């Protein structure tokens, strides 16, 4: 409770929380904000024709058009408040449903990555000796690859096997994301595992699992969790980057990075077709900014030691 109060007191993190709440509401109410034409495939962006040129937003003010759709005074299949991209994908629809993809990408990827890193690092640090040595050398090997390039490779290799989808991109990012967390938690566990209370637990006959989960992790996990919370924004960016490069979500999937990749075909006339970059771009920036603001404040509150530390 104290944590929430502190977060709300800081104007920056308050702004972040408000933004996140807004995106959360958009994600929850997506079926009402933008009713899917095909209820079984809500993540396929609603498509209105096949014309290759993007069409501009209709109506005088896109936001008032959005309001009309939300209040059911008009149908977004007739008005396109944020315009359409090439292939007539509705930008408004893509942004609304893309919010869900973004939440899914940010939270799931970060969560799974952090979990793998924590398990790996805990095993290495707790058992020590040759196991520590071997585990950390393997971590070194994974860290020898530049993150995005390695993820790109994995995504490219997975595509012939499991097809182009958000799962491909997510797996690619997870495979190369966990090393930082395992290093961080390893360091913290190494300093904690010799403490008296851990020795006491061991003397009392507790098993390895019990010692790690009940005695060590609760005292070592916070810095890693804070860093993970600060990374959510970066993962959203990387995930969208893979889609942008054409390695993540398939064409027409409600994902902001995928929508931005349409803009690559219109570079000489981007100012004419500004809506195909401005709306998805703005959504992505605000979403990432919100996570970063909250993560930053969380770090200052929970772990003053990490101030100025950068986690990428």
């Amino acid at each position, binding site marked *: 409770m104290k944590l929430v109060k502190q977060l709300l007191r800081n104007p920056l993190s308050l702004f972040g929380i408000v933004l996140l709440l807004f995106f959360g509401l958009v994600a929850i109410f997506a079926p009402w904000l933008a009713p899917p034409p095909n209820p079984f495939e809500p993540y396929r962006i609603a498509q209105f024709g096949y014309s290759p040129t993007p069409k501009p937003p209709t109506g005088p003010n896109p936001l008032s058009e959005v309001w009309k759709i939300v209040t059911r005074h008009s149908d977004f299949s007739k008005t396109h408040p944020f315009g359409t991209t090439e292939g007539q994908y509705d930008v408004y629809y893509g942004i609304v449903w893309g919010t869900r993809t973004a939440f899914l990408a940010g939270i799931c990827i970060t969560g799974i990555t952090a979990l793998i890193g924590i398990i790996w690092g805990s095993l290495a640090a707790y058992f020590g000796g040759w196991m520590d040595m071997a585990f950390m050398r393997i971590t070194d090997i994974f860290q020898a690859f530049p993150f*995005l390039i390695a993820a790109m490779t994995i995504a490219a290799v997975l595509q012939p096997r499991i097809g182009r989808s958000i799962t491909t991109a997510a797996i690619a990012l997870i495979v190369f994301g966990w090393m930082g967390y395992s290093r961080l938690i390893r360091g913290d566990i190494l300093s904690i595992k010799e403490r008296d209370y851990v020795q006491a637990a061991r003397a009392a006959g507790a098993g390895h699992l019990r010692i790690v989960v009940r005695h060590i992790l609760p005292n070592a996990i916070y810095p890693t969790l804070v860093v993970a919370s600060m990374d959510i*924004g970066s993962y959203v960016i990387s995930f969208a980057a893979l889609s942008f490069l054409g390695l993540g979500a398939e064409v027409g999937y409600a994902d902001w990075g995928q929508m931005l990749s349409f803009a690559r075909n219109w570079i000489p006339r*981007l*100012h004419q077709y500004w809506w195909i970059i401005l709306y998805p771009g703005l959504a*992505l*920036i605000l979403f990432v900014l919100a996570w970063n603001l909250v993560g930053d404040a969380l770090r200052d509150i929970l772990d003053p030691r990490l101030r100025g530390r950068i986690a990428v």
Partner: protein
Amino acid sequence: MTAYVIRRLLLLPITLFGVTLFVFGVYSFLEPGMKAALYVRDIPKTADALDRIIQKYGLADPFHVQYWRWLNQVFRGNLGWSKTAQRPVLDAILYYFPATVELVLWAAIPVLFIGIWLGILSAVHHNKPIDHASRVFALIGWSFPSYVYGLLLLMVFYAMLHWLPPGRVSDWVIKEINAGTFREVTRIYTIDAIINGRPDVLADVFKHMVLPVITLAYIQWALLLRVTRSSMLETLRQEYVMTARSKGLAERIVVYKHAARNAMIPVATMGGMLLIGLMNGAVITETVFNYRGMGWWAANAATQLDIISVLGFTLFNAVILSLGILFIDILYAVIDPRIRLE
């Protein structure tokens, strides 16, 4: 010191061995038929064509046999044939490498100078307007995907104003290169233009470089700024800084000579991360700006599922990165004697 360097050097082959094992492991993830398909140039006319390729190149052999065969070839500099570049992968990498080096080096200059300088300034003027401004600047930079940033720059400076075009050089320069009137010596065009004594080409190269350099540098500034700022804030609170002040030294000398030098030590650890950031960023930046470098080629190859090229590119990058980080770590040990004791 020597012991530290030797230990680091001994770890390098282990890491590199792991890297090759991993790259080949990723490749082995494909079924023999898929691997064979990577080598076929035309649609096979007979039904057993793929099987014959699998037989001929032993694509269904056990992992270690294939790995050993592959590793032998890699040591001879044979990384396979790149379909997208229409030449051997290593040739393609070396062909595109200078362009990327040029981009990364130009981007590193503003990153280092502006990042560190703004970081020092905002620490010195802690909680003053300049501090707040640079923190906001850093936070925005941290949240700004480089591809959105690059596209916005292109929208304003290319589509709207026609000032700064995408690509690497203008068509007339490419024509001159093909005609042989402009000699490619290093393929780093800023240097080539000077060697050829062609200020007009140099101007053209710069015109194409401005936007990619800004895009690539922007996010890295933000990272460096944050680290410099916090390290500098900590150093300024140290007692020796107070001593320097009480001796009556000018504030400028206290800040830049006494505090900044020590504050730079943690910043130096950022070197590796900076290198990774620039390498990753180069892929995105080159793709956005259609700048024909290594990253552009690799991203293209990846979308066209030219997996041989992508794996070669990844292996090359991993080797460069390992060597780069080794170099930075040794440099760090030279700067900071305390690190050697660990």
